[in-house]
């Protein structure tokens, strides 16, 4: 049988050119979108609050217009009773974030829903009803981080967080990081989450 050249749409050259244009085009679009996303998610931008938000009351409520949950920023509620400047707040949150990485939290927990599934999500950990009351929350969180075995919160699962040799300054920094993270607008994730203090609203 004699060989016939394939139609243009099935030829190697056609698909080679298509592959180059499609790849190039998609990548250029991704770069443009990335510039815009960076603008929107920088700390202090429209979606990710400045680090000094830890001086305020943070909560999470259902927004009827958007039909989804959203973080809300309220009155002054300084963390550990200290109002921090933007720089001090950033330094504290930064220490917390570094500790979360160095202790490898992400290989048990999820943060913003990403990580491992052996322990609860930390996105809204600051707002969890499990802390009982707003007044005692900070200290309970610190105590838990310092000695998770003694202060275990296993909810009957027998799964205990190990002692990770977290120091008191590291524990406070982690709490600051968690409070700041809970204020990020995550497009309604997690859904149906009733924050501490919002039970009757």
């Amino acid at each position, binding site marked *: 049988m004699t060989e016939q050249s394939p139609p243009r749409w099935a030829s190697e050259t056609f698909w080679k050119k298509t592959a180059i244009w499609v790849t190039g085009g998609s990548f250029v679009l991704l770069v443009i979108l990335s510039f815009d996303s960076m603008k929107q998610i920088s700390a202090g931008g429209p979606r990710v609050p400045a680090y000094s938000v830890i001086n305020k009351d943070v909560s999470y409520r259902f927004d009827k217009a958007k039909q989804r949950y959203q973080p809300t920023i309220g009155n002054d509620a300084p963390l550990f009773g200290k109002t921090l400047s933007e720089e001090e707040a950033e330094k504290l949150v930064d220490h917390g974030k570094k500790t979360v990485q*160095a202790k490898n939290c992400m290989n048990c927990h999820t943060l913003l829903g990403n990580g491992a599934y052996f322990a609860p999500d930390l996105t*809204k950990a600051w707002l969890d009803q499990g802390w009982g009351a707003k007044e005692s929350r900070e200290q309970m969180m610190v105590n838990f981080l310092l000695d998770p075995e003694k202060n275990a919160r296993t*909810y009957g699962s027998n799964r205990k967080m190990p002692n990770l040799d977290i120091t008191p300054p590291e524990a406070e920094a982690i709490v600051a990081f968690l409070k700041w993270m809970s204020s990020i607008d995550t497009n309604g*994730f997690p859904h149906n*989450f009733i924050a501490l203090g919002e039970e009757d609203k």
Partner: protein
Amino acid sequence: MTLQAYQEKAAACWAGCQQKHASLMANPNLSGGQKLAVHYFTVAMVLFMAQLLFGLLAGLQFIFPSFLYEILDFNVNRMVHINAMVVWMLYGFLGSVYWFLEDESGVEIVGLKWGQLAFWVLTGAVTIVVLVYLLIQIGSGTDTSLWLINEGREYIEAPRWADIGIVVVVLTFFYNVAATFAKGKWSGIAGVLTLDLVALAGLYLAGMFYVTNISVDQYWWWWVIHLWVEATWEVLVGCIMAWSLMKLLGVRRKVVQTWLYIEVALMFGSGILGLGHHYFWIGTPEYWFTIGGFFSALEPIPLVAMVVHSIYDAGAHKFKNSNHPALAWIIAHAFGNFLGAGVWGFMHTLPQINLYTHGTQWSASHGHLAFFGAYATINIAFFYLAAQQARGNVWMGGELVNGWRWKTAAVLLNLGVMGMTIALLIAGYEQSFIERAVEGSTWAGYFAAQNHPWFMQAMVWRMVFGLMTAAGGGLLFWDLLEIGKGEQRPAAVIDSEAVNP
């Protein structure tokens, strides 16, 4: 055992390794690049075994939470489990490229000595990183910990010093590939492969910096993870698959290369912006719902195309091939890639369902089948090609001596992974309903879902299938060490394509 007995045992083991290494280097059946490939494949198999072992330990901790508590905690086991996986897959890819580089370019590898040095540097670095993971595990909240112990970012936990080492090794690999093709023939496969490697190495840089802002952190982290796994790795595997279809079945170059371009267009066309499905919930703008949802829904299309392509080629050649185990694993790859990466990914990729499934065992279910189906399978196929050549290009068709071994290993591995996937899927459904939809994702809701009998049963079944997978892995290792030894028949000769395209 006394210390002296240990030392003697270690010395005997080391002598055995040296002897094996010497006989590999003297093997007349292998080119320089192929000998290097066998080195990569050997370490890949060892890491595969480590992945299985630490996966079993982590899986057991779901059932017995006190198991190895504060000795090897879940986060350590899980980290070694997923890191061993990423690294053995990369070793498999690097080895596969070294394997066919000389054949494809028609010349000897340029700078092979550098490639060999890079292999030892990489293997040394991987050993140190794993030892630090196991023995030191965590550090204080300082930059030093991130540079020396653990970066604490899922999949790319390797400390920064190792990141730099990885980049240097990948650049050496890139030099080998690009310089060899430049000296010899440039083919369509060569072009796609070289450009893909530039992207693969470049993307790794996006994961090599620290930022306080976790939204920004995860934005770039996904550039590495997603654009590796759902774009550049897929294209790399497409190149490997294209070359192996020519070798195994005798498919014409024009056919495989046209398919390769189609796959690149579809894969990058859907996968690059499909990255948006990771940007639904990390603080990023709402437009990612539309972009991520739309393009990631398209991501299965190239995988369907790959299945069509392989079935067409295998059918057109009436399954006549020179290496049965390798072809079986390539078929497993085509289906596994489509099912694991395509179907399982698609099932929970749209934001309307992902709101509930994000961060649950759904992702674990998808991850297990996708990594196995898309990448483990093609690497195993290549290990069999290497074993055949290394033993003198011997017969690997029907009626193989001890042929039960590769068949049983393949059945155990495929069934085992599929079983784990289904068990984790059940756990994922249960978690999405109970923790997310009903309980509103509180910590109490999380544990209500974890304690539920449906979840616990799923974890037990996952363990059963995990053990089956591990048994299959062990058998595979044994088979690769033995297959073809003492075989006298030469490999079946496959003519280049005689059928009409």
